[in-house]
């Protein structure tokens, strides 16, 4: 079982400008245990790892390695003291072979060493073989499949026999079989007496592997315990799902007969080697409000980027009669498929009014005024703040501005990506009311992506569940509440 305390994190805090990424984070990491760090997007998990590794410097708090305070040390010194990290995205040296990449991890930090000792080459080979790269030692990274690149990252991290191993998103982009293999490798690390800290979006995979789980939200710890304990924790469930999953019966007369507005057939998206979307079939009818729910990394944003023409894809995406593949992203937007992205993409140095005007740039002056009046009616706070620069608005106001700007384009299909991300509950209420109004008053079709199921359900005629790039469930909200409330997390 677990042994001595290797890492002690005490009251760690980190701010990036005005945004608090981590506040008052404390926990211990013991030798011979795997601790999983979970939390929704923006909860500070990756930041904690960066702070421990010395890549970012904490504003306050302590990090002790075997009793020695390492906070404030440069990253390379921390690395030489026995901490290593596997980053979320593989970082190989493209011009070197696999063997050379691993050798690099074994080299001492010396300016004068020109020749590498023979033992280094041998040791590198051993390590590579241990993680399963024995067959590709002399290949270059660009020729390797995704999983092998991740193996190489793991090999580099364990090369110098670290006491503490930090792994950021070990399972992202892996198939279930590969996940099992990696989990076994990570277990071996633990059995060798190392202290392992994991961060991943896939709560299930972390739960299966971790001895202890710590849940984070908005920069601080909200729960700690065994995997089961944490997943049943009220606060955790609320944070992930948004609360109790209640379904409201949607009275949508004749929605089943409405013409199909958006259709996706077998859509696939690859980022390099990673398959981000796997044969997604989707349909949205006129006037329907459809939700896509899923955790981070499930592929919701990728899906929307494909529809908007921002990433290349395989398969077919049709809007009405038109195949969207032949159009540029801007013309897709002009054609009525308006995408309000997760990152909002506001013009932060322009005023609220200027942002909205740009949204209505394709309309005639009178039409634009009418549209503007309508948006101001929907979001009175925007009218109040119309002369202010967008970056001075609060998070909730910025979301409203993004939504308002999208509405200025008179969308036929509005694609809304995670509007509730990082917003306080009070704002959620306002947003919810605004969306309800849109539903009642206007002929608008909505495709909504959300992690917060409680927010999404009342506005949905139909629900799709996206997991690891695949549609794993679809149906109406009532059925969703019945079937998914226990199994979702």
């Amino acid at each position: 079982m677990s042994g001595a305390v290797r890492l002690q994190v005490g009251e760690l805090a980190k701010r990036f400008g005005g945004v608090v990424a981590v506040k008052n984070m404390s926990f211990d990491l013991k030798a011979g245990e795997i601790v999983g760090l979970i939390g929704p997007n923006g909860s500070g998990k990756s930041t904690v790892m960066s702070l421990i590794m010395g890549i970012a410097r904490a504003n306050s708090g302590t990090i002790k390695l075997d009793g020695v305070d390492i906070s404030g040390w440069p990253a390379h010194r921390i690395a030489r003291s026995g901490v290593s990290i596997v980053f979320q995205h593989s970082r190989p040296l493209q011009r070197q072979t696999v063997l050379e990449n691993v050798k690099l991890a074994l080299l001492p930090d010396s300016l004068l060493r020109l020749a590498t000792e023979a033992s280094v080459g041998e040791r590198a080979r051993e390590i590579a073989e241990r993680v399963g790269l024995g067959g590709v030692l002399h290949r270059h990274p660009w020729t390797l499949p995704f999983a092998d690149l991740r193996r190489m990252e793991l090999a580099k991290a364990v090369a110098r026999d670290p006491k503490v191993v930090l792994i950021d998103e070990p399972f992202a982009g892996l198939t279930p079989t590969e996940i099992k293999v990696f989990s076994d490798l990570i277990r071996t690390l633990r059995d060798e007496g190392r202290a392992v800290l994991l961060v991943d979006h896939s709560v299930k995979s972390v739960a299966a592997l971790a001895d202890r789980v710590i849940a984070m939200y908005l920069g601080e710890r909200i729960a700690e315990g065994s995997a089961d304990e944490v997943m049943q924790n009220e606060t955790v469930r609320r944070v992930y799902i948004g609360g109790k999953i209640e379904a409201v019966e949607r009275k949508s007369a004749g929605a089943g007969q409405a013409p199909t507005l958006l259709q996706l057939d077998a859509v696939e998206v690859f980022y390099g080697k990673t398959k981000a979307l796997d044969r997604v079939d989707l349909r949205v009818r006129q006037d329907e409000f459809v939700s896509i729910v899923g955790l981070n990394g499930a592929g919701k944003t990728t899906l929307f980027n494909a529809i908007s023409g921002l990433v290349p894809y395989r398969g077919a995406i049709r809007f009405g009669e038109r195949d969207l593949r032949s159009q540029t992203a801007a013309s897709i937007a002009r054609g009525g498929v308006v995408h309000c992205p997760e990152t909002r993409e506001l013009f932060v140095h322009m005023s609220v009014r200027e942002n909205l005007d740009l949204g209505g740039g394709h309309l005639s002056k009178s039409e634009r005024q009418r549209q503007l009046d309508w948006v101001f009616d929907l979001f009175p706070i925007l009218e109040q703040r119309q002369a202010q620069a967008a970056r001075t608005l609060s998070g909730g106001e910025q979301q409203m501005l993004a939504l308002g700007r999208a509405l200025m384009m008179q969308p036929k299909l509005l694609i809304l990506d995670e509007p509730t991300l990082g917003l306080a509950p009070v704002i959620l209420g306002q947003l919810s009311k605004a969306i309800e109004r849109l539903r009642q008053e206007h002929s608008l079709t909505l495709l909504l992506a959300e992690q917060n199921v409680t927010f999404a359900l009342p506005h949905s005629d139909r629900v799709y569940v996206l997991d690891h790039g695949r549609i794993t469930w679809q149906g109406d909200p009532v059925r969703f509440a019945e079937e998914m409330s226990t199994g979702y997390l």
Partner: protein
Amino acid sequence: MRAIQILVDGFAISSLYGLAAVGFTLIFGVSGVLNLAHGGIMVVAALVGWLAAGELGLGTYAGTLVGVLAGLATAYATYLVVVRPIQRSRAIRPEETEIFVLTGTLLWGIMIQVGMAYLFTDNPVTIRPLISGVVSIFGVRTPANEILIAVLAWAVIGLLWLLVNRTRTGKALLGASMNPRGVTLLGYELTQLYLVAWGIYGVLAGIAGVLLASFLGVSTTNAGQLTASAFSIVVLGGLGSVSGSLIAAYVVGYLETATAYLIAPTLRPIPSLILLVLVVYMRPQGFLGRR
């Protein structure tokens, strides 16, 4: 007496610097490109203007116009032949694109400089003043042309301001400089916006070139220096900030003029160089930069 002379001369040269720098910073803000062929574009405008006005006998006004058009054409050539192919090339890794564009525009600038010298001349050329006569400002006799140049430079800058802040395309350009993805999602074609941006830049650089020719004269050997001074001014003012570039232009223009009058003409560029080094060390984002 001296002071007023410095004030007046400095104003004129600074206005021209400002005009050229605004174009340079616009292209960086919208297109992300540090165009090292900048001086070359100005030189083409000056030379063609001189040629049209004098040798081809079109007269000063028409010649100037032709010069500006030549600057526009050269700017488009720079974008379509050098910058865009490099930006779109799949053989170049995205992190290296910036360096390749820099080197590419540098080479292109050299080609323009040498090509122009070969085709026409590498002696300084001047375009006859647009208006003649001398005006007396606080006792200093100044060519009326010089005043006109400063006025024209500011008129153009004013027009640009109107364009960017009052027209839809201008606002879209401004948006593109802040957030290219944002404007795409609002239905504006980036490819078209870039073409507009380079067109505006060409006109600005062209006007700066012909005006400089009419004020101090321009030679192909100036190309590098013109690029360097635009670059320095823009970095001083803050890459991407138009108002910053204008302020910096006046700082540099006056520093240079004062140095030339009070210390020695040969030491003209030194104080601004030193200022540049200081700023780059201590406040790399420049006076008003926001990147």
